[in-house]
């Protein structure tokens, strides 16, 4: 378990400030953020390599805010591996290993037995990363910190290293905190995701919650939401038929009319009237060539501006009364609809697919 309460750590002029989040025991946490967000400073503060100047850090139930790194029962793997260049592959893996048996086991498991006697300088990028991972795991850490460990690998190597890590993770169930700037990785791997920018947490929670209900347009934008619109939210009267009370009695959800440019969307939310942002994931938008009679509250006529096929998915950008709306449909559907730039289409999405923030 990793628990941060208002943690502040400083490196030169840069600081991560007032960072709070929890990664439960055995869970896989992801820290996402753009370059320079403070992700590495944060993991190094958790590792004890950057001093924590404020707040409280708990690992596995023990407070370790000011404990030295060697007493934290964790390991760290950096993007550039930092293998000890004066040692062989075996000596690197054995460095902090709990037993020579564990070392041999990991060397075999990661396919490194054949290169065990070699100096690490002659290894390829993928092999180096595997050695770094094996070295970190040989210590049998309770917490594994990964600082963009797959970023320098080619896609095929990345998949195989990631698979190997996942297998060991499911076997041993240690707690992982991985840093990445790739939000797809967060969706693929994480139980908990933390969005960091300029040293501060913008949002923390389950990855699907972050994707579906980003706390701010900045989070939505960073997490790759295709449709983020600024506008004005106006709650619809309580006596209207679509007034809704949420199961949680403390929060009341209203039907909301959200106006952006010449377009008014229909949404649900508990939001203060006034300026806000609406976020709609492209895969929540469906397309048809004729208006259809459905339960969806948002249906708009638009013109195709751009079609971008990417494998099985095609992203279609529409002009809806001046509003650029992106829909993600299967490439087969796009072909069957005979979409082409300038073609008239109807876009539809549910009120529940519109997230207001």
């Amino acid at each position: 378990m990793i628990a941060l309460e208002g943690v502040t750590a400083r490196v030169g002029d840069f600081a991560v400030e007032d960072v709070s989040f929890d990664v439960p025991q055995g869970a896989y946490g992801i820290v996402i953020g753009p370059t320079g967000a403070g992700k590495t400073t944060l993991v190094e503060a958790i590792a004890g390599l950057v001093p924590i100047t404020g707040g409280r850090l708990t690992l596995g139930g023990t407070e370790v805010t000011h404990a030295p790194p060697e007493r934290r029962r964790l390991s760290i793997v950096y993007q550039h591996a930092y293998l000890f260049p004066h040692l062989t592959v075996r000596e690197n893996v054995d460095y902090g290993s709990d037993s020579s048996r564990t070392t041999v086991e990991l060397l075999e498991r990661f396919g490194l037995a054949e290169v065990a006697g070699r100096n690490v300088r002659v290894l390829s990028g993928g092999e180096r990363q595997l050695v770094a991972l094996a070295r970190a795991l040989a210590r049998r850490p309770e917490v594994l910190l990964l600082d963009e460990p797959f970023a320098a690998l080619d896609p095929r190597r990345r998949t195989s290293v990631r698979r190997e890590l996942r297998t060991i993770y499911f076997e041993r169930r240690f707690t992982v905190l991985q840093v990445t700037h790739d939000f797809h990785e967060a969706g693929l791997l994480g139980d908990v995701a933390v969005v960091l920018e300029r040293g501060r947490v913008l949002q923390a929670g389950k990855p699907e919650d972050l994707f579906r209900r980003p706390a701010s347009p900045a989070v939505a934008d960073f997490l790759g939401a295709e449709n983020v619109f600024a506008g004005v939210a106006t709650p619809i009267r309580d006596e209207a038929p679509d007034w809704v009370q949420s199961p949680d009695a403390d929060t009341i959800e209203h039907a909301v009319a959200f106006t952006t440019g010449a377009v008014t969307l229909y949404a649900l939310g508990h939001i203060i009237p006034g300026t806000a942002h609406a976020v709609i994931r492209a895969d929540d938008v469906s397309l048809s060539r004729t208006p259809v009679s459905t339960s969806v509250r948002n249906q708009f006529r638009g013109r195709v501006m751009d079609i971008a096929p990417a494998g099985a998915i095609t992203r279609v950008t529409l002009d809806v009364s001046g509003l650029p709306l992106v829909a993600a449909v299967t490439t087969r559907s796009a072909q069957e609809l005979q979409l082409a730039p300038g073609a008239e289409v109807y876009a539809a999405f549910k009120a529940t697919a519109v997230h207001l923030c």
Partner: protein
Amino acid sequence: MTARPSRLGAVPTVLASLAASLFLLFLVAPLAGLVGTGGVAGMRLLFTDAELRSALVLTALSATLATGIGVVGATPVAYALARGRFRGRAVVSAIIDLPLLIPHPVAGIALLLVLARGTPLGEALSVFGARITGSVFGIVCAMLFVSAPLFVSAAREAFDRVDPRFEGVARTLGDSRWAALRRVTLPLAWRGLLAAAIVMWARAVSEFGAIVILVYHPRVASVLSYERFTTEGLKGAIPVAAILVLLALVPLVALRALRGDGGLPSRRR
């Protein structure tokens, strides 16, 4: 149309080559002249002149002792300056570099002021039978004072070249701060540290100004060459000076070999 190289473009190259040649000539000519004139006689003196032999042995041993003390005392200082982020680091660095900038007889006078008999430190040393004037102890002190800053500077660079993240990884793998230093940092920095020690040793061997203030007897090689010059003139000083130049090549060659400088440009990878 192809552009033709301008003749004017060659002028800076010619001027730069001329300046470089004159500069190299200025450095090499006196040394080559000295070795050419007195090299053979100097080598002969090595077998016949017992005073020269003992001066050379005294010089080498004193420099080795000074370097040993310097390595033990200055390595932690260099490490602290490379890794530490403490207030006053720039001031500490400047103070350590100071002996490099002051005239070396002034360094000798400063040592005399603090370590001579009659001073609290001098009296404390005399309890152990050590005195700074006219003794090997004085020679070692003078050598240490003027050459240790070079070691600190070079050793600090050697530590700077080792990324602190290596130490960080070692510590997450269970090492204490000392264990990480011993198992990772020192093995990665040893070439630089050895080079720093060689530079310090070479500088200690060549010291004259501070030593001559403290210790005229027993004579180290530099003091002997000066004495031969004042008593026998140029003719008597040249063979001794030539042998010192030839011996100075030994640490320089060792240094270049350590840095892997084989004279060929390294190939880009």
